[in-house]
């Protein structure tokens, strides 16, 4: 028998290779606790994690549960976690999954934030679809509906196609950190869907939609801005970015003041930077509750909040973490610079319309690769860094 080279001992005829899978198994109806199950499959490295799970099911255990349909990243059925990260099983190559595994075993689990029906199948109806239905996911057409088609700008349609690219796989829902502690949060997928209609110039109820989502304690202001959904999405929908745009249109365009301090917090923060150039934390909290002025702290809502935070504040002062002088007067940048900052505010906020660069529409300029050369002596803040590490 011919000896195979050591490094290729698991290579097989036809380019296949051994991959070890660790599957999380659970059948809630069995009364048994979840457990891990390991199987070794034989496939080419460019094959998908889905194919590996299906092979394990066909060869070793017909009871393994996974949902799938199109097998080409279009239907959104096979959302799972691969090595702890959300992914479409059909869109994840085995070689990539192997390289991201901690111990050489590809670990496959069901998605998070949703109850498990069986093994890798979660209850999308109980969480994801219920939340999508919450945002009125259809067009409420402006009246009168034209006899033929609506005429809208190309740009506005390109804009909403980003959220239309969503395949409802639930990867973002699975990883949402706000939902992890607050299951009632409407969440990234449904709010991205909400933008689909808020951003549609044919929709008649932009204000009503935004007011509804802003006033809901588990609406747009419940997002923690953690970028998890941005990273999870296999289709570049950028759900968190859409949520920020919902906030921007609600507060800046419609002046909606919500009951969750969302608008007040934003106004307080933006106002404080205008006034001081730097954040003034001691003012930010009371203004976020009581309103965006120095008098905000005397509002009953601010008083209640300050009272509940008093033990924390006292401890901070006692530990010299916060000096009373700083807490009262804050810190400022030099007067000339503060003036320059205010000039920027006046100019930008004085525009009739907000000017917003959307890279999804505009795309990136074609740029030459940064050259890998040493910065000349005395050159300021420019550096030779490998591509991708320059931010």
């Amino acid at each position, binding site marked *: 028998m011919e000896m195979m080279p050591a490094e290729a001992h698991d290579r097989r005829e036809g380019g296949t290779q051994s991959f070890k899978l660790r599957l999380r198994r659970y059948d809630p109806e069995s009364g048994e606790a979840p457990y891990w199950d390991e199987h070794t499959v034989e496939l080419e490295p460019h094959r998908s994690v889905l194919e590996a799970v299906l092979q394990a099911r066909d060869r070793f255990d017909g009871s393994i549960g996974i949902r799938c349909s199109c097998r080409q990243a279009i239907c959104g059925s096979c959302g799972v976690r691969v090595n702890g990260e959300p992914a479409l099983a059909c869109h994840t190559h085995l070689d990539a999954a192997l390289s991201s595994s901690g111990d050489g075993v590809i670990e496959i689990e069901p998605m998070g934030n949703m109850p498990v029906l069986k093994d890798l199948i979660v209850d999308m109806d109980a969480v994801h679809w219920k939340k999508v239905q919450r945002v009125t996911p259809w067009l409420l057409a402006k009246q009168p509906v034209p006899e033929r088609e609506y005429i809208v700008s190309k740009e506005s349609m390109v804009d909403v196609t980003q959220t239309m690219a969503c395949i409802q796989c639930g990867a973002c829902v699975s990883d949402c950190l706000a939902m992890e502690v607050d299951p009632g949060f409407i969440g990234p997928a449904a709010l991205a869907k909400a933008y689909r209609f808020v951003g549609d110039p044919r929709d008649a109820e932009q204000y009503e939609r935004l007011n509804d989502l802003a006033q809901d304690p588990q609406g747009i202001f419940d997002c923690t801005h953690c970028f998890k959904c941005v990273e999870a999405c296999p289709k570049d929908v950028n759900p968190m970015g859409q949520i920020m745009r919902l*906030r921007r249109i609600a507060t800046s365009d419609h002046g909606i003041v919500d009951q969750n301090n969302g608008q007040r917090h934003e106004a307080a923060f933006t106002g404080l930077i205008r006034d001081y150039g730097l954040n003034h934390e001691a003012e930010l909290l009371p203004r976020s509750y009581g309103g965006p002025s120095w008098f905000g702290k005397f509002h009953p809502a601010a008083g209640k909040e300050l009272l509940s935070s008093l033990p924390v504040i006292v401890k901070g002062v006692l530990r010299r973490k916060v000096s009373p002088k700083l807490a009262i007067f804050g810190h400022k940048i030099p007067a000339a610079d503060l003036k*320059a900052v205010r000039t920027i505010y006046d100019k930008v906020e004085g525009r009739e319309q907000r000017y917003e660069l959307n890279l999804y529409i505009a795309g990136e300029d074609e740029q030459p690769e940064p050259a890998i050369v040493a910065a000349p002596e005395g050159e300021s803040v420019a550096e030779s860094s490998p591509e991708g590490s320059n931010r």
Partner: protein
Amino acid sequence: MKVAYWPGCVSRGFTPELHGSMAKVAPLLDIELVELDRACCTGAGVIAEHNQELADTLNARTFALAQQVPGAELMMNICSTCQGAQSECQERLDANAEYRAHVNQTLASEGLNYEWNPTHPLTNKNFLWLLVEEIGLDELRSRVRRPLTNLRVGPFYGCYIVRPRRRLGIDAEHRRDNYLHEVIAALGGTVIDYAGMRKCCGFPIITMNKEASLKQAGRHLGDAVDADADCLVTPCPLCHLNLDLQQPLAEKTVGRRLDMPVLHLPQLVGLALGLEPQELGMGRHVVKPTSVIDWSTSVVAGAAA
């Protein structure tokens, strides 16, 4: 190396021990800090949420000021949130010449200009990235005077410095989302993995949904307690606010005693480089880093013996 240094607001406000410890640590690593004291807040994502162009213009102003610092090799910050907010603005400014020109037009009244040069792009690095990529782990290791032997340290990264990966230049060659692990190990400490290490501290929603916010902080701290960490370390002062300043309230929310000290990155580095807990402002934390200080005195006593 000389850097244009952006300390951020909170490091000079509610976490003054961060700015102070960075100033103490810098000379030990031959970093010359030229403070960008004319620059304003990055907006922490909130100004961008209000008006994207406003955030981009304010940060372009900071970049322009950094580019004026003679001889500075790069721009450095000590706040994950600043890094994330600035990287987001820089992404838009660098991607589109027309937009950059538009923003620069606003800056022109002050005589400032954010220059984009493809061969010398503006480099902006958190202290954590600078430690690994500019100073290097071997060099850092060689400067350690008091290795963190037997100190069990849990890393807490903060969202803005680990996501989104592409914008932050994280890939297989640049494992920036693993650098805290590498730095703790280089300083001689034991890295403690726990579920919440790359999750959200909850700070951004503290005024909107206080319970959810404190539940996040409490849960991650609890995970670290269960993993037997002696302390956490974070490169983000906003995370520090929720994890340390608010820890007594987080304890009430999750219904368990936590008592988990949280150190700023320069404090942990400073301890290993031989500085004393007091000069690193460790007495200023709400949760007293007693376990860490006990450890440092016993190490010193051990070394003397």
